[in-house]
C-alpha cells in the first residue's frame, strides 16, 4: 500500500513539490511574523529552512541533491532546477527599467572583472597558505572561489585531479550559501538598496544561486538587476580562469 502511494507521488513529483514549497512558505510567514515580529523577512527564513532541509536530506541519503534525494521530495529538484529557475528570473525582467540597466551597464562590467579577479586572487592566496604549491591546484581552487561551475570547468581544462575538482565544487557551494544567508544581513552596511548597487553586487558576487537567493531575501525588486550582471559572471570566469589566469599563475610560480 505504501509502495503504491509512493509510486503515485513519484509520478506527480512536481505537483508534490508545489505543495511542499507552499507549506515551507506558509510556515516561514508564521515564523517571520510570530517569532521575529517581521524583523527577518519571510523569504530569508524560507531560504534558510530550505538549506536546512537540504543538509538533513544530504546527511540522510548521502546524496548530492539535498532533500530531493529523499523520494517524497524528488520533485523539488525539478522545481528548483535551472530550467524553472532561469524561466522565473527572466520573468522578473518585466519589473526592471531598461534605462537604469543601460545607465549602470558600465558599473556592471567593471564589477564583473573586479569580482572574478578578487575572488580568484584571494582564493589562490588562501590555498597557498594551506600548503598548496603547484599551479594546477592553486588555479583550480582559485576558480572554485568564483562559482561552483567555474571551478570544475577550469580544473577539467587544465587537467586537475578529481578530488581537486570536488574541492573546487564544494568551495563554490560554500560561497553560494554564504552569499544567500549573508546578503540580507549585510545589505544595509554596503548600501544595497538601489538598482545601481544591485547590479554591482551581481557582478561582484557572481554566484547565481547566492545572488538570486540573497537579493530575494533582501528586496525582491532588486532581483532582476543583480541577475542581469551575475548571469555573465560564470561565463567570464570560465573564459579567463583556465586561460589568462592559468598562464599568469604559471609565470608567477615557475
Amino acid at each position: 500500500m505504501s509502495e503504491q502511494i509512493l509510486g503515485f507521488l513519484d509520478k506527480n513529483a512536481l505537483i508534490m513539490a508545489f505543495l511542499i514549497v507552499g507549506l515551507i512558505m506558509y510556515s516561514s510567514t508564521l515564523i517571520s511574523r510570530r517569532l521575529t515580529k517581521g524583523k527577518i523577512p519571510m523569504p530569508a527564513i524560507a531560504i534558510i529552512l530550505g538549506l536546512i532541509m537540504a543538509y538533513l536530506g544530504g546527511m540522510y541519503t548521502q546524496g548530492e541533491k539535498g532533500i530531493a534525494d529523499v523520494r517524497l521530495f524528488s520533485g523539488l529538484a525539478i522545481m528548483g532546477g535551472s530550467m524553472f529557475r532561469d524561466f522565473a528570473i527572466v520573468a522578473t525582467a518585466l519589473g526592471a527599467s531598461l534605462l537604469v540597466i543601460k545607465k549602470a551597464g558600465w558599473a556592471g562590467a567593471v564589477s564583473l572583472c573586479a569580482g572574478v579577479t578578487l575572488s580568484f586572487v584571494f582564493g589562490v592566496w588562501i590555498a597557498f597558505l594551506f600548503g598548496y604549491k603547484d599551479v594546477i591546484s592553486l588555479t583550480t581552487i582559485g576558480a572554485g572561489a568564483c562559482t561552483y561551475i567555474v571551478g570544475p570547468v577550469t580544473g577539467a581544462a587544465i587537467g586537475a585531479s578529481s578530488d581537486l575538482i570536488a574541492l573546487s565544487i564544494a568551495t563554490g557551494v560554500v560561497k553560494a550559501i554564504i552569499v544567500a544567508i549573508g546578503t540580507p544581513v549585510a545589505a544595509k552596511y554596503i548600501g544595497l538598496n538601489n538598482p545601481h548597487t544591485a547590479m554591482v553586487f551581481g557582478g561582484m558576487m557572481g554566484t547565481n544561486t547566492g545572488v538570486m537567493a540573497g537579493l530575494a531575501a533582501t528586496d525582491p525588486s532588486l532581483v532582476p538587476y543583480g541577475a542581469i550582471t551575475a548571469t555573465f559572471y560564470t561565463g567570464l570566469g570560465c573564459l579567463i580562469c583556465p586561460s589568462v589566469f592559468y598562464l599568469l599563475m604559471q609565470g608567477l610560480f615557475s
Partner: protein
Amino acid sequence: MIIYGVALLAFSFIVGQLLGEVLGKCIGVNANVGGVGFAMLILMLLSDWLHRKGRWSITSNQGIQFWNQMYIPIIVAMAATQNVRVAVSSGLVAILVGIIPAVICFVSIPWIAKFAKHRLP
C-alpha cells in the same frame, strides 16, 4: 490570453539562452555566457514594443507576472536541493576559500559602485 504572455516569456527565454550557448561556443567556453541576461533584455524590449503598439493586454501580462511571483518559491526549492552536506563537511580549505574572498568582494561593493558612478561618461 494568459498563454500569450507565457509564450512571449518562453520565446525570450529560448532565444536568449540559445544566444548564450552560441556565445559560449564562439569564445571556446564550456558554459552558457549571459543567456539569462540576453533573455531578460529581449523580454524587456519585446514587451515595451508591444506596449507601444497597443498589442499588450492585462491578461498577457498576467502570464508573465505569474512566473515573476513564482520566483521566490522556486529559489526556496533550489535552496532545498543544494549539496549542503558537502559544503559543510568539506574541510577548512573549502569553507575558508568559499567565505573569505566572498567577504572581501562584499565589502568592496560600495567602493566599486562609487568608482563606476564617477567614471560614468
